């Protein structure tokens, strides 16, 4: 008797459409991924606003400062990825920022300081922070608010 030998066949699906889709997905996620979010303190409760909008053109040089009250009631500043226990102690870092801006030919008066302050912090703390920045000739401030479109 003749025994037929079963031939093992390799099944090959057409993967081309899947790869196309996957590349499209990657392109999409690459475009919307935003690494600048890392400098934002996400636990902070920002004030919200209906009319605050992101500026049309980005500033030449920007410093983002997060200001909140710690559990013991003292203000805490977080910027350039560092935590500061008091507003008075940010001076050295501000000086460094000023120099790094000067290296990019941006005068201190053009540096934009974005203040992301907790909505329940006393405003005098925000003014204290502004006064500290003014000591380093910074004068452009932005009060950050969450866009509230309803």
């Amino acid at each position, binding site marked *: 008797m003749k025994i037929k030998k079963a031939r093992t066949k390799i099944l090959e699906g057409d993967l081309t459409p899947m790869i196309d889709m*996957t590349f499209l997905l990657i392109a999409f996620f*690459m475009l919307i991924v935003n690494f600048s979010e890392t400098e934002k303190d996400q636990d902070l409760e920002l004030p919200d606003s*209906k009319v605050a909008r992101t500026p049309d053109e980005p500033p030449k040089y920007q410093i983002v400062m997060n200001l909140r009250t710690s559990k013991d009631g003292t203000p805490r500043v977080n910027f350039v990825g560092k935590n500061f226990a008091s507003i008075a102690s940010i001076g050295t870092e501000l000086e460094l920022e000023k120099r790094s801006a000067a290296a990019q030919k941006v005068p201190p008066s053009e540096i934009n300081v974005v203040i992301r302050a907790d909505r*329940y912090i006393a405003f*005098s703390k925000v003014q*204290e922070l502004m006064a500290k920045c003014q000591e380093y000739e910074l004068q452009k*401030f932005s009060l950050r608010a*969450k866009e509230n479109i309803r």
Partner: protein
Amino acid sequence: MKIRGGQEKEQIKLQTTAMIDIVFQLLVFFIMTFKITALEGDFQVNMPQASDLPQTPIENIDKTIRIHLYENPQAIRITYLNADGKEVTRDVRNTLQSIEVNHGDRDPVTFSHLGKQYDAFKALRDHIQGIIESEADPSQAKELEVEFEVDPNLIHGDTVRAVEAVSARIGEDRTIIPMIEKIKFKDTGAGAGE
């Protein structure tokens, strides 16, 4: 004549497995780092050093609107939506009590904030809009400047609401109409001495 059958075509097959592996890894990475965050907007505040400021000429005194924000030391129960969309109730001290507007030599106007019954921020916005519209020349309205004086303990959120009220309004067609661009805060000397 005998026509020869076409030569059997040889298909070239690419090994795509390795590429797909890497592509999937990339995809997973980007999906994991993807985070939906609320958009954020800014209010511009210009605060040059006091010594750099030119003295305000007398004829320009009418261009400065001075707004004083008074705090309410009593705790007020407020309900709001937090970042996760949940309703949160908490007692907050030092919310806004009233707003006083001084413009040139006109009589000061005061708006008391009574929460839902009377919104002082809305009243302030309407008042500022009235000042802008009373300017005969639109280019003159651009020269208007607001200086805020804020009680030290007033919460930041209410200050931002007042800044919002003077800086823009929402028109009937839901577009944002800018109002006053020059905003500054009165230097209270806080911080500099501390």
